[in-house]
């Protein structure tokens, strides 16, 4: 376990200083401190070798009546802190702001301790060969670590720490990436298996356009939930189309669809007790019985309506203000055996891996890009088809959930890059069968 860097931060002095710019009772004022480290083992044909990126800094924020002022710096020291405070304050104080003393331990003195990354490329190659295939691939392995401390004038949250790993493979026939909370043999085998499937599907022709059944593996359900449920229920996205609180009570999916965001139930290593605003996280029912119950909100949006509850504020960087985002999505299991999802289907496609998804928040149109799929013939998997797109309007697509499997599994994760803020998102979900959905070949007309 890496040491917590903000243990010696004089949070009481920071809080006292911040209280000077919180002039109105409804003001949101906080100081966000972060330290990050990314250790990267590049492909073996690429120089330079081991890459270590380390950074630390802070941001001070004042939110008042829908307006936010934020000042950020790439260091944690007294003078820049006082400067940033002056930039955020809306009224000049009679005296200069005090400069709290900051004492932070240095980063771990030896950045060479990324031993867990070193053997991964070889382990991946072995795992790929165990599938009786072999192909050249350029493998990049990264360890991501982040420490966060939020201080408000009245509340000081606990320090948070996240550690996770990412794998990226590039081959002549395509690329694949994934995030893992642990870099163990399961992660390696899972990644290798995904690569092998992509390799075997590399020359498959896209399917003809069709409307019918699609059985979604958990990894695909995770992307579907992220784009079609979580993004659609972020308070700032809802506000683009009208009043966010008007979404509460709207039937958005079939009655068997229960979706939660629960950062505290995320895999160890990325589990959170508080969000990036220092608010306690909760087990948030986004959809209960297919009906919208609690949209994702941060402190800013929670100020706009008593219906919206904070605890989902996330920041991709100290240089940008937080926004409402999901962390760890769960689809509650249904009652159907996973095998029966396929055996009950006659025709259609089995979607095993998802590329990226996209949601147009205004039209509600959703697209899920799939690198390949398998035909379902008489309840069993048939031949492979090439890249395709699952398309539909969110409100229609989610009502087409015909069955949810009873085996929920950690479904991997991915990077979310909304509004220029890149952050990891996680999911635990069972497989799902959708009926009457539209699937098109990727890349437009043939």
């Amino acid at each position: 376990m890496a040491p917590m860097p903000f243990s010696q931060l004089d949070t009481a002095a920071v809080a006292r200083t911040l209280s000077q710019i919180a002039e109105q009772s409804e003001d949101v004022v906080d100081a966000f401190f972060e330290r990050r480290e990314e250790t990267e083992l590049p492909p073996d044909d690429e120089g330079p070798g081991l890459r270590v990126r380390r950074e630390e800094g802070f941001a001070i924020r004042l939110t008042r009546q829908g307006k936010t002022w934020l000042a950020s710096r790439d260091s944690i020291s007294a003078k820049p802190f006082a400067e940033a405070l002056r930039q955020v304050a809306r009224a000049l104080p009679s005296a200069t702001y005090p400069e709290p003393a900051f004492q932070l331990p240095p980063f771990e003195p030896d950045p060479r301790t990324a031993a867990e990354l070193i053997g991964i490329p070889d382990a991946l190659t072995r795992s790929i060969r165990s599938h009786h295939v072999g192909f050249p691939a350029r493998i990049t392995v990264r360890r991501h670590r982040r420490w966060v401390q939020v201080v408000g004038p009245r509340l000081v949250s606990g320090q948070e720490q996240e550690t996770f790993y990412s794998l990226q493979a590039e081959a002549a026939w395509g690329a694949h990436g994934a995030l893992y909370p642990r870099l163990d043999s399961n992660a390696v085998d899972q990644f290798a298996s995904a690569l092998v499937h992509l390799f075997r599907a590399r020359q498959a022709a896209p399917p003809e356009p069709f409307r019918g059944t699609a059985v979604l593996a958990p990894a695909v359900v995770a992307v579907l939930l992220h784009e079609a449920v979580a993004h659609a229920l972020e308070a700032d996205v809802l506000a683009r189309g009208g009043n966010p609180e008007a979404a509460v009570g709207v039937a958005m999916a079939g009655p068997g669809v229960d979706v939660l965001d629960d950062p505290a139930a995320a895999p160890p290593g990325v589990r959170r007790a508080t969000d990036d605003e220092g608010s306690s996280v909760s087990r948030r029912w986004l959809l209960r019985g297919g009906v919208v119950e609690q949209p994702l909100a941060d402190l800013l949006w929670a100020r706009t309506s008593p219906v919206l509850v904070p605890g989902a504020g996330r920041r991709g960087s100290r240089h940008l203000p937080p926004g409402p985002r999901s962390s760890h999505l769960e689809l509650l299991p249904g009652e159907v055996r996973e095998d029966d999802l396929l055996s009950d289907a006659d025709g259609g496609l089995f979607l095993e891996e998802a590329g990226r998804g996209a949601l147009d928040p205004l039209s509600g149109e959703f697209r899920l890009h799939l690198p390949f799929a398998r035909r379902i013939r008489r309840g069993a998997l048939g031949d492979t088809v090439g890249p395709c797109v699952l398309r539909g309007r969110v409100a229609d697509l989610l009502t087409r959930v015909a069955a949810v499997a009873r085996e929920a599994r950690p479904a991997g994760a991915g990077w979310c890059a909304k509004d220029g803020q890149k952050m990891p998102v996680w999911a635990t979900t069972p497989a799902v069968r959708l009926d009457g959905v539209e699937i098109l070949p990727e890349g437009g007309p043939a």
Partner: protein
Amino acid sequence: MNGTATTAAAPLLDEVLVALLRRGLPDVEVFAKRGRSRRLEISPVTETSVFSQEQGWAVRAGDPRRSFFATGTGEPALDGPWPDPTGRPVRLPEPVPPGGAPPWNEPSDFSAPLIGEREGLKLLESLGRELASELPGARLTRAALEDGSSESEIVNSRGLRARFRNRVATLHLEAAGPGRSSASVYLAAREARRFHPPALARRLADRLAVQSQGAPPDRDGGEFLLAPPVVARLLCGLLPFLVGPRAGALLAGLRDRRGRIGSEHLTLIDNGRLPGGALEAPVDGEGVPTREVVLVEEGVARQSLLTWWQAESHPNTGAPSGCTRRPGWRDLPAAGPTHLHLKPDPRIPVAALLGSIARGYYLIDVSGGGRFDPASGTFALPVCGFAVEGGRASAPVARAWLCGGIGDLLQGIAGAGRDLTFLPLAGMIGAPTVLATGLELRAG
């Protein structure tokens, strides 16, 4: 030194360089960057003002067998801590001999102050008003303006030293219109004051109107007038044919019997020193002097865009130029265009090109990601615009795909207008309005 700016970190960079040399690492590069930016964002309910000061550094170092890359915020410490070198060695550029680099004077607007909070918010608000007056029912759903300046410095163990400044502003707009239509634009310019609200509002309004009223055509051909955003996206999809040591072989596959890869209206240029360009700089991300490189001249392929290290590894593929991009201190230098553009014809107004179309389409924008397949030599790009008859727009077109062969696209360019416009894609990619034939529009 190239450039005219100063940075305070200079002596420290030299000290770090020497400290790493003393550790037995003969190849060392130290890079430092500091910048300031103001970001203003409005939505129908919120307003945000951010002022950031960033400062970071990067070190590439190694011996003939192995190397490392380390970055951090603030200033580098002499004793690191540095990672152990692993993997491959790092390659560093040699300095240009005295007099070898063309002179360059820093533009005066590099020193212009960042846009103020009130001024920036006023610009965004006026955009919203202009949009509403252009198209009743249209509104901005999000507008983000960022204006920033930076100072960078590089020293390396080969003796290369460079200092340079950058000044760039970006504008991201998202709008909603009648019939649940939506449109967005993302632009970059040297400074925020160069964005022109009425023109941007017209562009968004046109796009929203076309999206809400347009229909996809039946499979159709004819003459195509392609607005700069469409041509820029096409050029972006063609980058594998233009950039890097393998580009020459790909481009050679497009040669016709006369040895040309495009019509005489096709001249493609990359220029890191483009006057007024958003990324204008005397040197690239490794400190190598930038210059203008003609990649295709009147339909004849001249050379690929190559960095010094690509040209060294692949002799006889072309002369290198400073074309290594380094967006920030966290990033490793990577090859890529700076201001890649299709040369405009200053004599030809867009109206003249439109008036010359008997039957065809005027495609004003791109509505999603496209497909470019170098192996099959084909492309497909989702577009919107107008059908044209007798030189006049006759009906809006949406949910359509512009399809064709990459060779047909380049050979079919029948004219270029004078309205050169750059978009921030892979670097700045620019194009004027282009008249093209030999392509197809299909429903998607």
